[in-house]
């Protein structure tokens, strides 16, 4: 057991982590892949998705919860596959793989934890009309930080997730600093 203080079974640790996630998100469908337990770096990448929100592939849209518990698509990345499949802001997400989408965390986690190539059936209601979209996740180059300027000069910085990396393109703090901190702005 190199570099270890406590002997462990990686599979048991992984199952405990997924069980802990399920406690916070009843109905979570995140499951350990068959390859889990043989490569710490790959396993960390898998668990990072549900733990810190950094997607393995790019779900490509954001959700918010309505007062009645429904999930609504807030924004869609044009560069990501959901946009190509017709998902748009304002669509109500009703089902994920046939299961009702009633809790944001439990239903969205699989979308973030799945790798590129994974297929989901999304039930959406654009304008109140039910529609099923077959979504194939694709690896998208989505930065953790984006920023833009509104017409009246207000600067908007959106931080999607937090990550540290020696490569500035993957380091959230570096990306935020590049946005600049002067002038009126708000952070999302």
């Amino acid at each position: 057991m190199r570099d270890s203080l406590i002997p462990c079974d990686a599979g048991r640790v992984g199952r405990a982590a997924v069980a802990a996630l399920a406690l916070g998100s009843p109905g979570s469908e995140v499951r350990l892949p068959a390859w889990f337990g043989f490569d710490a770096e790959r396993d960390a990448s898998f668990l990072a998705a549900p733990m810190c929100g950094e997607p393995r592939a790019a779900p490509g849209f954001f959700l918010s919860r309505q007062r009645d518990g429904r999930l609504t698509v807030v924004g869609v990345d044009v560069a990501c596959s959901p946009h190509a499949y017709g998902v748009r802001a304002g669509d109500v997400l009703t089902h994920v793989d046939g299961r009702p989408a009633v809790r944001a965390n439990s239903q969205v986690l699989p979308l973030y934890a799945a790798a590129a190539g994974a297929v989901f059936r999304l039930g959406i209601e654009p304008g109140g009309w039910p529609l099923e979209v077959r979504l194939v996740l694709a690896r998208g180059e989505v930065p953790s930080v984006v920023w833009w300027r509104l017409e009246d000069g207000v600067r908007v910085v959106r931080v999607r997730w937090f990550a540290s990396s020696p490569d500035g393109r993957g380091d959230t703090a570096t990306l935020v600093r590049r946005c600049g901190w002067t002038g009126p702005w708000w952070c999302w």
Partner: protein
Amino acid sequence: MVVLVNEQTISAAELLALALVELADAELVGASTAGGLNEFRQMELADGYRLVVPFRAAVGPRSREPRPGHRLEPQVRVVNARPVELAAGLDPQLETARRRVLRRAGGS
């Protein structure tokens, strides 16, 4: 500075928002955050694995106090946009945040 938060704001995002409130006089706009203001303890396991366990409430960098429910409550509460608003390109939270930023920048 205005920080827009809602129920999707969780963990590190809540910590950042809390720090900006206490250290940079930021104003929170939106809805209550998820409730993940915790500190974590890491334990080294075998073969490069680590076990991360929440073990106590996170406190503000200046107040040194935990927040009720381990979550942040916005000073300006704005409900999430409705589907019809989003479909029309409207975002009441964004619009409120924009107005608050301009108001604070103008000193009014």
